[in-house]
């Protein structure tokens, strides 16, 4: 095939490695994601709190400033587990808002326009497709969750000294773990919902609904059955339970760690199952 000859010609050049093909999808998905000005603005806004926190870290470690206002004694500016738990929680909320705008647009256009057979008639599997789309969202959410949080941790370590770093290294692990758990839940939820409803706007609304309706449903279950197990339907509560434990902060939340982890794993498994059933070249009508 050539433009001037206009005749069919087979391709005889080199091919890319098969394992890297999912990155193609990730690249194109990212390009289309940042075409929206709202999404780009929202992404930028997500860095507002980390920048504020950076200033906070700087001030907390500025001896002359603290001495002048006698703040150390008051114990207001303390960089500890509570500080990083608050930062993580705020960034997780922002990540959720970002997901509402970005997540549903990843799969639903392909499903709505019947493009899946075109992907899967190539040497490209369903798992690679899901991985490609999920990795795009995961990278985006990483930029607003664990990346700025670890940057702040590094800044605090450099200002407070090696002793602080050594004593609080576990917090870096907690940041990574809770961020990745949240990213995984958001990726799977948004992809599964958009695969299910095939309409971007509805999928976004549904994602919002899962969080709030889930919480409401959990409360209703608690009231009607006189139990605390309704909290397992409240994803925000599950994440909060795990976060508090990981950062060693006392919590009044009534469900145990095991219940919280089990509930989150069940949600992820259900999302994967839904994705596996919906993301296929042709649905079999039985």
């Amino acid at each position, binding site marked *: 095939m050539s433009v001037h000859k206009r005749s069919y*010609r087979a391709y005889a050049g080199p091919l890319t490695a098969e394992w890297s093909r999912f990155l193609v999808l990730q690249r194109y998905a990212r390009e289309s994601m940042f075409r929206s000005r709202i999404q780009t603005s929202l992404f930028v806004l997500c860095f507002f709190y980390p920048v504020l926190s950076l200033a906070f870290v700087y001030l907390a470690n500025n001896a002359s400033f603290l001495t002048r206002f006698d703040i150390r004694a008051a114990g207001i500016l303390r960089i500890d587990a509570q500080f990083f738990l608050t930062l993580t929680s705020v960034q997780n909320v922002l990540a959720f808002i970002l997901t509402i705008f970005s997540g549903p647009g990843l799969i639903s256009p392909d499903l709505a326009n019947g493009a899946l057979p075109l992907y899967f008639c190539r040497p490209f599997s369903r798992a690679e497709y899901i991985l490609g789309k999920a990795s795009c969202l995961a990278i985006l959410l990483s930029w607003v969750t664990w990346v700025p949080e670890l940057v702040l941790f590094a800044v605090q370590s450099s200002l407070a000294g090696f002793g602080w770093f050594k004593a609080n290294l576990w917090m870096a692990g907690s940041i990574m773990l809770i961020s990745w758990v949240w990213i995984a839940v958001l990726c799977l939820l948004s992809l599964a919902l958009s695969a299910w409803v095939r309409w971007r706007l509805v999928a976004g609304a549904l994602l919002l609904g899962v969080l709030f309706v889930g919480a409401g449903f959990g409360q209703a279950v608690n009231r009607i059955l006189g139990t605390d197990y309704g909290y397992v339907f409240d994803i925000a509560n599950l994440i909060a339970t795990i976060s508090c434990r990981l950062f060693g902060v006392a919590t009044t939340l009534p469900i145990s760690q095991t219940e919280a982890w089990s509930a989150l794993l069940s949600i992820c498994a259900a999302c994967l199952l839904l994705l596996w059933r919906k993301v296929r070249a042709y649905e079999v009508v039985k």
Partner: protein
Amino acid sequence: MTSSGSIAFQASGGQPAAGPHGVPPVINLRELSVRLGKRDILKSLTGSFSGRSIGLLGPNGAGKSTLINTLLGFYPPSGGSAEVLGLDIRRNSREIRALTGYMPENDAFVSKMSAVTFIRMMAELSGLPPGAALERAHEALFYVGLGEARYRKLGAYSLGMKQMAKLAQAIVHGPKLIILDEPTNGLDPPARQRMIRLIREMRASKEIHIVLCSHLLRDVEECCEEVLILKQGRIVHQSNLEEERRTNRRFLELEIWGDPGLLTGAIERLGCECALAPGNRLKVILAPEVEVRDVYRIAAEQDVRIRRLNFRRDTLEDIFLKAMETPQ
């Protein structure tokens, strides 16, 4: 990057059945059955097809698209086996898809992407490096006649343009086999002609095999050498259209004025078979060395006038209708 530029037919796992010239057949079916839900869609299909272009015919619901989807690995076979380009569909599904281009029947695109971006992405997913993918995306779009519209969003394309874009994505990675599922669906006559011309051009390039699935007999007749007719999930006819056309050229049906006995005797003396039918009609099977002009010459010598001469050729429509009458 792996250097697998020249695509090998033989995969590591497969033991392809060789065709008459040592080349594996394009499609080889061995008792292939497909069951979806509780329904048997394909029932013990057996056949081997080696033509440059293979037509897949059948009424709606005959199992044409299911056969294609099974060959591409979208549906698992419930029994039997099949090979595409010598590769087993169960074990070498990925290799088969690397060698194949597919144009689905229904709308399939991403509406917010420009045609060139979409085709490029498809080429990259097939393994082409980004630079080569972009180059071939432009080439493919020019080839199918969408060169001037290549930067437009696919969602803004007309139905005919979408069909052409689907063809472009199917050929952009230079496959060895292209599967076209109802490629002329919804096209107006000029667009249909363009599509048929492209398919014939690709066939003529001898670099690609074509499987054309259609319920339009004319499309298959114009583009295909071999034909496979399905009915209710079974093969009811398979034949080589080119051979049939060649064979049919030896059949003549004459309607004459004059003495048929004279002409019959003269034709038989040339070594041809001849049968007299009511209404001064003759059915003739020409001997290999005899041409049609010899029949005209003899008729003139015998003072017999030929009012009508037909090649008694079975059209694809005849073949199809006969196949549809075949009891299951």
